[in-house]
């Protein structure tokens, strides 16, 4: 069941680089990351690639396979024809460090700007009581493995480097949604979502949802509800009036 596949891998760093072609054996059941590792072990010992768990749980091996943002460990070779050339490139949205490894510090900088979780006090017996139905929405967003593929595919920053200043990207918009829907969190994050994290830049074209390896419905369950919550506060004249005369809408 072994065959020789043609791989084109981007090799280089910030100063330049290009696609290099390799012929490499592929065995049954393998994924793209296995093939990259075989290249590393046999033909290109210094081929840089970031990876950890190799089971789709840590979100380290993000790259673009045939132009599509993917986790290399979850891209089975059986999805390609044997004579198909497989092109592997680093995530385009982030500065490249070397080969397939990119500098994802943009994401860590944005993460640090998210206002921290502020819990309400515990119950008298020292427990927090929350019903399953109340935690489920935020739990969906907490499945995020921070592979940053949604950040990579989002055209707001992918095609417009300058927007990185004003737009936090889908990953952090769902983080804000997670906190805003969190049954224990005592902070209102709607103003910050719009003003500091650039929620309005999202034009809900849903590429983040398409690319998410965890199957999180970023757009439908996170970003759009967050936009609607912002509308409650900023664009709904009734609640706006309500907030002006001191009555906050019940949540």
């Amino acid at each position: 069941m072994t065959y020789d596949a043609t791989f084109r891998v981007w090799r280089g760093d910030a100063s330049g680089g290009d696609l290099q072609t390799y012929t490499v054996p592929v065995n049954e059941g393998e994924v793209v990351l296995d093939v990259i590792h075989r290249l590393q072990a046999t033909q290109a010992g210094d081929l840089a690639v970031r990876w950890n768990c190799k089971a789709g749980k840590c979100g380290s091996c993000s790259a673009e396979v045939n132009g599509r943002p993917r986790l290399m460990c979850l891209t089975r070779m059986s999805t390609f024809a044997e004579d198909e050339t497989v092109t592997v490139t680093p995530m385009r949205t982030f500065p490249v460090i070397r080969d397939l490894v990119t500098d994802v510090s943009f994401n860590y900088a944005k993460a640090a700007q998210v206002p921290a979780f502020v819990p309400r006090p515990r119950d008298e017996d020292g427990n927090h009581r929350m019903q399953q139905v109340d935690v489920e929405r935020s739990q969906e967003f907490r499945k995020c493995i921070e592979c940053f593929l949604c950040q990579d595919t989002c055209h707001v920053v992918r095609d417009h480097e300058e927007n990185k200043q004003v737009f936090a990207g889908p990953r952090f918009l769902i983080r804000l949604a997670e906190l805003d829907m969190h049954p224990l969190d005592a902070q209102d994050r709607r103003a910050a979502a719009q003003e500091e994290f650039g929620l309005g830049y999202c034009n809900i074209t849903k590429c983040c949802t398409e690319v998410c390896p965890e199957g999180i419905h970023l757009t439908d369950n996170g970003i759009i509800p967050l936009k609607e919550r912002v509308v409650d506060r900023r664009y709904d004249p009734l609640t706006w009036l309500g907030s002006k005369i001191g009555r906050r809408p019940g949540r």
Partner: protein
Amino acid sequence: MTTTAPRGAGTAAPGRGTGDSGRAAIAARTLRTDRWWVQPLITAVALVAFVVYATFRAFQNAYYFAEPYISPFYSPCLSTRCEGDTFPELFTGPTWISPAIYILVFPLGIRLTCYYYRKAYYRSFWLSPPACAVAEPHRGYSGETRFPLVFQNVHRYFLYAALVINVVLFYDAVLAFRDETGAWGHMGLGTLVLLVNAVLLFLYSLSCHSCRHIVGGRLNHFSRHPVRYRFWTFVSRLNARHMQYAWVSMFSVALADLYVFLLAADVIVDVRFF
């Protein structure tokens, strides 16, 4: 470099500004090998076809009533100049204005500001982006942060208006259980067409993201509002098919109108069930 710690001296971090972003030098606009342009193309063709047809029919100002059926493009008919016995006929406008024009803004508004249609036309018309991981052609991008696109946020008001219209269209379908003489106990293919169309339009409106938010999505403690939680669960299930409802209801509206058009123009004869 990737760190949350202060950087030491002597570590050169590449520039981060536009033009010097330090990204991998890949010239191709996309390396996708599939036919990514098919989807936006189909969307564009379908939307253009609908808009052309709807515009023609809205301005035609004729063939929109064939007893007991009224075209959904012309209902609710606000002008007394409407053909036939229609609802609610509130005022009299100039004859050269088609009665469709008065109400057109509402169905147009909900679809234009709909979260699904936004995705569809941003992708297929504005190419922003044409498909995932395919570079868009624009130099700058400000999304929905400024005029006019910031007005997308009024979606929920169009939803309210659309729900009112949905009720009227449903009422139209009920009236279609009368025959030409106004006697109850009739049903023709036209009745069925109007009824199906009214139901699909309802499903489209109810499955809307704003609706989902309003019925319960804005709550943080579902467990304290069990009834609203059930509404929310119901709307959430519909919402998962919002895109399908958007397309199907758009076609059903056009087909319902076409059916009435053909009846009124005496091209076809209504099939009568009883």
